[in-house]
């Protein structure tokens, strides 16, 4: 499925689809980093806070508060996907009809309609990140390729990573670990640092919450560990779904056996992504009443008992 989706839109294989770049990030690895977010991901986590990183094609972003209801977009939409919502005095987009052609973006002068996702060649993207080189040097930082899932655009990501490394720039790859092909795996094998997301050890729960089984993810992790890669494990703390009172110790025991593990980051559940769901015309379904701070801190205590180096936040 993923391959067809990619081929359908990414006609130019030389280019990578990026949805965000941050210059000067204090998280996402060691030192000061430039984080590049690549679009497209094989997983569909229920708690995903970057929903615009999931699909591997540019998607229409509609920020309703900026719309002045001028109606220009309605006239140009070839799919008749846009209508006025008389109650809100704003337009509304029927996402079932919309095929993200972008025709409406060109006529929207308020900036209310835009794309999530911009294509860059390897050289273009490299020129952008290279500007921060002095900051990497002084802080022991570098580039972090995240997403979405970086291995989902394997050729581009590999070429970009190599270009950085040839120029002595440290590359961290933030991955879900779901690498099924040789091309995808070599990205993980050759990154300088892996930020490896671990959602669940239980295959059924994993499939239920993310849409794919964790079999490949865990076997990749074991292989990378065997290769002695620098790994930071990142665990989203989502009550009931990822970390529970019952499985904490099991996860801790599993992690404590990974020799090349440098640190475990616990990322507490939050709902900051809600606005982006709205901009995509989607709903953020997950909600929880649980005390997340308590759960996160408890997890930290248990993990530390297993000798793990734990950090809250990434």
């Amino acid at each position, binding site marked *: 499925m993923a391959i067809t989706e990619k081929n359908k839109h990414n006609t130019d294989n030389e280019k990578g689809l990026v949805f965000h770049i941050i*210059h000067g*990030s*204090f998280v996402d690895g060691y030192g*000061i980093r430039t984080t590049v*977010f690549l679009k497209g991901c094989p997983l569909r986590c229920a708690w995903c806070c970057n929903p615009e990183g999931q699909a591997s094609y540019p998607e229409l972003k509609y920020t309703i508060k900026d719309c002045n209801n001028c109606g220009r977009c309605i006239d140009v939409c070839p799919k008749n996907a846009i209508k006025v919502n008389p109650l809100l005095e704003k337009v509304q987009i029927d996402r079932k009809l919309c095929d993200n052609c972008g025709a409406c973006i060109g006529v929207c002068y308020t900036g209310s309609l835009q794309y999530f996702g911009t294509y860059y060649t390897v050289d273009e993207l490299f020129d952008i990140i290279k*500007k921060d080189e002095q900051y990497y040097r002084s*802080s022991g930082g570098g580039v972090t390729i995240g997403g979405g899932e970086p291995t989902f655009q394997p050729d581009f990501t590999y070429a970009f990573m190599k270009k950085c490394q040839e120029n002595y720039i440290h590359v961290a790859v933030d991955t879900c670990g779901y690498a099924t092909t040789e091309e995808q795996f070599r990205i993980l094998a050759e990154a300088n640092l892996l930020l490896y997301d671990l959602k669940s050890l239980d295959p059924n729960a994993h499939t239920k919450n993310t849409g794919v089984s964790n079999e490949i993810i865990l076997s990749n992790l074991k292989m990378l560990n065997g290769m002695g890669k620098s790994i930071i494990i990142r665990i989203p703390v989502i009550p009931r779904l990822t970390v529970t009172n019952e499985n904490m110790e099991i996860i801790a025991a599993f992690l404590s056996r990974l020799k090349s593990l440098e640190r475990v980051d616990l990322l507490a559940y*939050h709902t900051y992504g809600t606005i982006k769901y709205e901009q995509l015309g989607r709903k953020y379904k997950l909600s929880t009443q649980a005390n997340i701070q308590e759960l996160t801190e408890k997890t930290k205590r248990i993990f530390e008992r297993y000798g793990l180096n734990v950090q809250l936040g990434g």
Partner: protein
Amino acid sequence: MVNVKTKENRISRLREKMLHIPDICIQRAYWWTKSYMETEGEPEVIRRAKALAKILENLPIYIDDDELIVGRSTGKERGGMLFPEIQWEYILKEIELFSSRDWDRCGSISDEEKKMVEDTLPYWKGKCTWDRFNASMPPEIRRIHGGVFFLGTSSMSGVHYGHETIDYSRLLKKGLSGIKKEAQEKLESLDLTKPEDFKKYQFLQAVIITLDAAAAFAKRYADLASHLAAQAINMHRKKELDAIASICRRVPLNPAGSFHEALQSIWFTHIVIRNEGWGPGLGFGRLDQYLYPFYQKDLSDGIITRDTARELASLFLIKVNDLAFISSTVNIETLAGFPTMVSITLGGVTPGGKDAVNELSYLLLEADEQVALNVEEITIRVNSSNSDAFLMKALEVLKKLRGKFKFVSDNTIISLLLNEGRPVEHARDYVLVGCFTPAVPSYSLDVTGGMVNAPMILELALNNGVSRITGEQVGPATGDPGKFKSYDDVWNAFKRQVEFFVPRMVTARNIDTQLYAEFALCPFMSAFFKPCISNGKDLIAGGTAPNIRECFGFSGVPNVGDSLAAVKKVVFDDKLIDMAGLVKALDDNFKEKDRLLQALSKAPKFGNDIDYIDTIVNDIIALFEAELGKYKGLFGSKPAVAISTGTGHLLMGTQVGATPEGRKAGEPFAEGGISPHQGRNTSGPTATLRSVSKLDHLKIRGGSVLNMKFNPDVFADEKKKVKFLSMLRTYCESGGYHVQFNIISGETLRDAQKHPENYKDLLVRVATYSAYFVELSPRMQEDIIARTEFQEV
């Protein structure tokens, strides 16, 4: 009830007193004028000296029960000093309004005080420098005043320059008596048959009068302390008062013998300098350097402990807050908030090039952590030889004070000063004066040149010399902008406007400088500038030439850059519209031109590390520098570019119509100076820092201001703090000049909720996820506000 006075509440009580609104003090204005009435016909420099002596004899003096360092700058607790010899009329007209105006309000004055002012101030009619300035200003130059050239002169600001730092180490080593001896020797060596020596003779006489007056002023305090000691019931306080009395008898007359004496000596001297001729920005320079020998000696002699030294330092920092910059209602629009700005510079290297950070550098940071008032302005020099421990300490205090300190790059500033031709030992010994200008204590004089409304110059280029707001022909006709065929045409029109205005600004500046050199002399302050005594010449009359800079502060430079980039991109690269269409849209303030407005707004903006626009900003700076470089100021001084705006970006914005960057008529310009326009730098902190550090700061000899806003989250843990530090160091070591931070508070976030348009760039982040605060739902905003405040507790 026994009044228990612990150290802590001594500091907090005195600190509390600096937090009430300032009171106008008319004493200086009154006695200065009285003296002038009595000295008609005498040489001007002698009149100034006698006027100062008169004030110091008559200024009401007071010692607070909690004080260990004594002396008040005015007759009030937190007083506003008046300088009628610069401007008198606004004082008479506005004296009653000071307590009721919209902002920068002061306490009201008594009827008696009002009468004293009314009886004396009219003396200055036609005599104050502002009146003289207006009388000598050619009409065609006067026209640019308040428009392109705002607050063009010091006369108009109603104060003295204030952008200089005396040689405090010389004061501490020699005392007033030692300096008097030097002046006397010089005086005796003069040959009065030579006309030029006769001028020197008058100056040196004036120096001696003021040095004696300063010593007598300290003696008044010594007597008061003795008197209070004799009456004191509390034995502990009696002892303190006796000590104060004996310190005031020794300093500043004699060399300082202890840390306490050194602080008292520099404070008394500073009070005298203030009364002689104060301007905002007058500071203390490298406090951690020249006080260090005293600190070290007292510590090893067991006279002080680290704690008692810190208490004294805190009391000193509170003391400097006893003056507030009072100005006319017109002026406070560009410098709102009583910006007294006593600059103190810490860190950096010694004149010999070694790491200058010492125990006192840390101690002063700790003292300010406790004091944290608005007048003491601490600048931290960032040098690669300064330890991480020191800079981390600064960041820790910075976090607590939500971003109070300024940071400047030693690399950039030392190169800048060397490039100006200063000796390397002087360059390494620099301090900041005013808000952001590098100066060498004992050698430099910076003449504040006023603020330039740079976007207005662009407007004139894009409107054939006519202001869009007033419809007046302000600049030269540089051609119908609708017919411009290339970006070069636009640039050349802008260049021709600049070529028109710069010489006029220099002329206005020179008239003012000449008037100050005649009528605003400061013989007392001059005594602490090495070249002044040896040249026998007052500082204000060019005693330290050629180390004189006239700084012209250009406002809205990022806006001019963004505008030119937008014209280049939208009109000439993308050809979305022609020049005639663009000009029409500007005339119409973009009415029904949403599409054009969006295209212009989307053009590359300064602050995102995009060379397309950043090089244009650099071109603008180079143009200003080259134009100013064609002219010379008085005493052969070299006019310099500064990039700053005070709070004037709001007022100046109201004077300019729509601009091509996508800004509508009347909207403000970029704040700070070189800070990217509010909300336009959306690519992360290093992108902003790089946009600024890639500019040629050696051409901005007067300095520039970069403000950055950070969420306190960036200081959440030690690791992040280390990252912040390396970011700061990299900026400073890669060509940056100055930066200061707002570590944003819940309060500001509340404001962001009310005015989201001003906070587009505020990031909140969790792990790999980032969101703009203003894009979050109100509920989520509440969540984050709560979190932030929690962190601050």
